[in-house]
């Protein structure tokens, strides 16, 4: 079958199982947009290419399938650089197809020419410049393979216009061996000896913590994690990228650690004698000052990326492998040591029961550890004060949203204070219900990512919790949402400031506020929402919060934007000052005894 390169590209995407892509056409990608008219793939026309990238990320994060974005050359391609960098930091499978000027024009500074493979080399898992039409099916197959296997990540395929117009004979690679990837061999099976050594450390621990990162979600490992936690009785912390990997309502769950993590999660890690890290990467926002992080803890580090072993902290036992498979391996090793499964044994004291006379029966009890953890939880729960003047507290908005939304609601956040409050005050019960920009901290992520998430899971309610600063960066994609009838809901925690920066200037720059004020009513968010085809709602007093949310929840035929006018001076607590030790965690001023008892 003779096809043009453009037809071969679309057919390759169809063969790969792509159902939807997000994009915006232009000169160099024009040939590829023609066969889209005849394709089964849904194309969502965005208003800015950054939106296409973040939509594809949101789609990928809730479905587990790779997100696909299509852009033209030059500025079209550079506009998707931020989503690529974002997906690279958060290991999100993303396939970007970019148009390129004709091969004969490459290097001549042609109109809308940009060396996008050069630009994105450091922020993609890999990228390709396709120079022959016959390479298209193999390259597309390789791109999806690389994006979705091993440690997932973004890839980019750059397609020159003349290659898209050239003729080729259609084929599809039969196997991995046909992909021409001689240097790519991700390891998924953990070393059994290392797994046995890790199990032994777990059976010796007196103050263990399961330190759970986004890798557990990438590996579809939430069920195995639940089993591991319940069988060992170990407390679980879920990082910002792992919210939902373990139910917040579970008695073993301590919540989020890190710079704005809760006191018990942060301090449990600091005092632990064993951290079992599953798909986490010892990010600086989790460790605080590395030299002082979890000083007494031995480390079991499970990660699919060999380069994470010892990158930040040298583990006692490093296991390279897929988090789900390694967790299952740990369960087998623990079972062999006598730590049996017991459906009735969700015990937070000493954990599950061990068969008498086995290795597991001789393990240390954890009653003292759990007594300490419960004491911290009682003393330092998340806390905020109601405002005497009647201002809306942003935390109260998140709590009300949570209480009025279906339990499986997908929550999407931008970056800043609102993101931390969303993570802290939502109760995540299911995996793949939390979408945010973790590593890169990309403001403006929420609106497009929520649209992509709703496209991926149209059966679920999708609430974006956004800041006013973030919203202004990418709000125009609500035009896309209205036009495509994608009914997302956006809650703007409008404090009229770049709030996180304002908080740092208050705390660390002697209240010298530099370039952080935005205004509560410029723009008028309700009018703006209406202009974009959405329903706009405003809540200015605490009494108006619940009715506004109920009204938003009742609308399912178009996007809704709710402008919550929140207290501008509220700060995120707890907080570990940047570069400081986690021991220096600062709790809400209304709570007593802000320092850890040494």
């Amino acid at each position, binding site marked *: 079958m003779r096809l043009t390169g453009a037809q071969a590209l679309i057919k390759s995407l169809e063969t790969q199982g792509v159902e939807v892509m997000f994009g915006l056409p232009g000169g160099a990608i024009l040939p590829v947009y023609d066969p889209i008219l005849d394709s089964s793939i849904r194309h969502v026309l965005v208003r800015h290419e950054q939106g296409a990238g973040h939509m594809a990320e949101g789609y990928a994060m809730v479905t587990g399938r790779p997100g696909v974005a299509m852009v033209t050359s030059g500025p079209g391609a550079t506009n998707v650089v931020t989503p690529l960098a974002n997906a690279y930091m958060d290991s999100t499978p993303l396939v970007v197809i970019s148009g390129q000027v004709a091969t004969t024009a490459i290097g001549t500074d042609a109109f809308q020419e940009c060396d996008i*493979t*050069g630009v994105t*080399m*450091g922020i993609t*898992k*890999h990228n390709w*410049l396709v120079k022959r039409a016959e390479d298209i099916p193999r390259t597309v197959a390789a791109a999806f393979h*690389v994006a979705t296997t091993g440690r997932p990540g973004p890839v980019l395929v750059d397609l020159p216009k003349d290659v898209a117009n050239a003729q080729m004979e259609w084929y599809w690679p039969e196997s991995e061996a046909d992909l021409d*990837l*001689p*240097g*790519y061999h991700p390891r998924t099976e953990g070393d059994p000896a290392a797994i046995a050594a890790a199990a032994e450390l777990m059976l010796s621990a007196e103050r263990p913590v399961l330190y759970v990162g986004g890798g557990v979600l990438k590996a579809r490992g939430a069920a195995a994690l639940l089993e591991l936690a319940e069988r060992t009785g170990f407390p679980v912390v879920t990082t910002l990228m792992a919210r939902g990997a373990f139910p917040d309502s579970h008695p073993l769950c301590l919540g989020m650690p890190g710079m704005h993590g809760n006191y018990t999660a942060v301090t449990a890690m600091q005092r632990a004698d064993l951290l079992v890290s599953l798909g986490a990467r010892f990010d600086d926002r989790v460790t605080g000052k590395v030299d002082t992080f979890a000083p007494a803890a031995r480390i079991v580090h499970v990660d699919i*990326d*060999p*380069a994470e*072993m*010892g*990158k930040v902290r040298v583990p006692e036992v490093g296991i390279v492998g897929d988090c789900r498979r390694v967790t299952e391996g740990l369960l087998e090793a623990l079972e062999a040591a006598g730590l049996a499964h017991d459906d009735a044994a969700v015990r937070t004291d000493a954990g599950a029961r061990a068969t008498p006379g086995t290795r597991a029966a001789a393990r240390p009890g954890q009653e003292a550890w759990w007594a300490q953890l419960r004491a911290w939880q009682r003393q330092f729960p998340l806390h905020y004060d109601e405002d005497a003047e009647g201002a809306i507290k942003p935390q109260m908005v998140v709590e009300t949203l949570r209480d009025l939304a279906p339990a499986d609601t997908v929550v999407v956040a931008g970056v800043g204070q609102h993101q931390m409050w969303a993570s802290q005050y939502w109760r995540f019960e299911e995996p793949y219900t939390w979408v945010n920009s973790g590593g890169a901290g990309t403001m403006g992520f929420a609106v497009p990512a929520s649209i992509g998430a709703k496209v991926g899971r149209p059966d679920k309610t999708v609430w974006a919790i956004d800041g006013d600063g973030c919203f202004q960066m990418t709000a125009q994609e609500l035009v896309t949402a209205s036009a495509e009838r994608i009914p997302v809901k956006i809650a703007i925690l409008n404090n009229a400031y770049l709030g996180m920066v304002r908080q740092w200037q208050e705390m660390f720059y002697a209240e010298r506020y530099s370039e952080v004020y935005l205004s509560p009513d410029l723009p008028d968010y309700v009018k703006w929402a209406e202009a974009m085809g959405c329903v706009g709602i405003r809540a200015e007093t605490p009494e108006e919060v619940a009715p506004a949310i109920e009204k938003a929840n009742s609308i399912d035929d178009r996007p809704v934007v709710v402008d919550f006018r929140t207290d501008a001076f509220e700060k995120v607590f707890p907080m570990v000052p940047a570069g400081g030790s986690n021991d220096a965690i600062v709790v809400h001023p209304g709570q007593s005894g802000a320092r850890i008892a040494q």
Partner: protein
Amino acid sequence: MTDLAPGRPDGEAPRHHILSVLVENKAGVLARVAGLFSRRGFNIFSLAVAPTDDARLSRLTIVVDVESAPLEQVIQQLDKLINVVSISQLAPEAAVERELVLATVAVDAARRGEIIELVGVFRGEVVNVGPDKLTVMLADSPDTLDDFERLLGDYRIVELQRTGRIALPKLTRPAPDA
């Protein structure tokens, strides 16, 4: 000249390690490797690149400054590059290393013989002669090149270029029969 003992005379571990990196012979691969070193803050001491006997592959011989980052981390990050096929680490004592230097030295006719004698001692070559300059070449171990360069320093060096080293593992000798 015999190869000088590798490493530091005081017995400290050598600062440099040699990575022999087999990569796909494709456009942009060198940029990927160089970009990785730059963005991860690893230091390259020297780098030599050439195709191997298999036209699909090239070999990079990278001498890494292991004080800039743990060698294991450098290797693991390099291995993540899709176009990197394999990496072998060569400890200096387990490798045969060679490097080539070209040097143009300003020297009048009266002292030209001194240079020619020096080149002869090192078993190098005079590759070009001008009225008041000589270009000489030496291919040998990097340490020997260091010695040669020091001795040439007694004259006025106009230009000097080294290739960076290439290396292969030392061959193991069969154990002597009992």
